């Protein structure tokens, strides 16, 4: 249609734009539910991790020095009973690349096996290795055999 008048060119552009717009509507009408469907699992996990406080029972049975692993908002956390009978609760997710750290009572430190990160077991502060930030420290109150751990 090389000799088509200008009018029909605008018409063709109009029709093409219309088809493209309708196609985009269909793609959105299918894409949106599929995205929401797939995202539901992550959203559910996020809702779970919104917890503010975790109560741990029977902590008096925890010898000193030693530590207990528990879940805080979907992530692993550490409750440490120090040799001086004091308590510390902190996130057990290494700030380097996310491995789970371990409390080492003999050397009085928290260590990450993945790349050798070392943290202070009282403050979560960095001692050595690649981790760029300290571990997140939680607030902990122990009374009547119960530990109440909450975000600072």
């Amino acid at each position, binding site marked *: 249609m090389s000799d088509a008048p200008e009018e029909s060119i605008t018409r063709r552009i109009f029709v093409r734009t219309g088809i493209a717009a309708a196609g985009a509507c*269909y793609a959105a009408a299918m894409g949106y*539910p*599929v995205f*929401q*469907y*797939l*995202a*539901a*699992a992550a959203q559910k996990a996020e809702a779970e991790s919104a917890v503010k406080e975790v109560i741990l029972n029977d902590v008096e049975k925890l010898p000193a020095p030693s530590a207990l692993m528990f879940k805080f908002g979907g992530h692993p956390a550490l409750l440490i009973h120090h040799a001086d009978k004091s308590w510390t609760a902190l996130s057990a997710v290494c700030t380097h690349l996310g491995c789970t750290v371990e409390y080492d009572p003999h050397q009085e430190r928290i260590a990450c096996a993945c790349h050798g990160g070392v943290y202070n077991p009282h403050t979560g502060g960095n001692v050595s290795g690649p981790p760029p930030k300290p571990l997140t420290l939680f607030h902990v109150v122990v009374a009547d055999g119960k530990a109440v751990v909450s975000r600072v």
Partner: protein
Amino acid sequence: MERRWSPVFNPSNLLKAIWQWVDARLDLSPIVKHASEKQVPEHRHSSWYYWGGICLFLFVVQVLTGVLLMVYYRSGPDAYDSVREITYQIRFGWLIRSVHAWSANLMIFAVFVHMFSVFFMKAYRQPREFGWWSGLGLLGLCMVFGFSGYLLPMDELAFFATRVGLAIPETLPGMSGIISAVLRGGPEVASATLQRFFALHVVVLPALFAPLLGIHLWLVQKHGNALPPSEEAKPEAERKSVPFFPNFAMRDMAVWLIVLNVIAVLAALFPWQLDAAADPLKPAPPGIHPEWYFMSQFEALKLLGRVIPGTLGEFAGVGLFTLALLMWAAVPLFDTRTAPGQRGRNTTLFGLLVLIAVIALTVIGYIEVL
């Protein structure tokens, strides 16, 4: 309005260069040439040519929604709970599940329509015999897809329908041990059955279906659309056709769009239901019946059982059934082409008889259970 691109960055030159690079290595131009020359006959019965494409579209819908269901479905003791979560908790889960279930039923319906239209157009005649047989294989696989998928939610309806469905072949002499050992995985429909059906539904059947579909589609490309005898009788000059690209392909897509809208409306207005969880200790609720595409076979067996009671009736029923199926498969062998346009009226009558019998038995079956 003329766009000016520098000779280096002209996108159409770039596309051409990429195409030439790929074509030089994979030698694709004969395929493109074949596709661009492909013609689709146009006549009074042309609209039946859409049904194969409808089946294909619905299969793609099944694969996509099936994979999405796999994201949250858990087989095993958790199966019912996982389907309940999909249906009531996960956002749009009800929609994905409804689309999968509705489209499954539409797919089997479309395959039946496709088969009968091919039959009455006599498209199974030489050289298209393998198209007929591969199509029958695809229909068989679709029905096993449906039967196995039906159990996966493990609700009451699924549980009893599967129990009955497996009990029917079991009454045949010698079959009982085989069904139990191979299909049911025990004397009762239970977790072991579910795990097998799940493996069948998501691994074995897709693995068989995909290559068979590939062969079927390849044969269709190779042979082109068959002409019904009424068209073949016309002199060549009077026959009309349209190019496949773009004319027929555009129409195919328009039909797919309609089918997509039909599925969307059905799924949104009649979301697929979930019964109470299957409980082997509870008596069967009234109205347990097979899926509609098994109804005619079920009813035929029931009616025969009334005429010839006992195992003999079952035997006669299954025997008759096998015979009918073999005859159906052998149609291309006895209704051969002798002269162009020859109609083969006896075969057409046979087909009409089968079609009427299937519809009548299905209707009677529903009248009896409802």
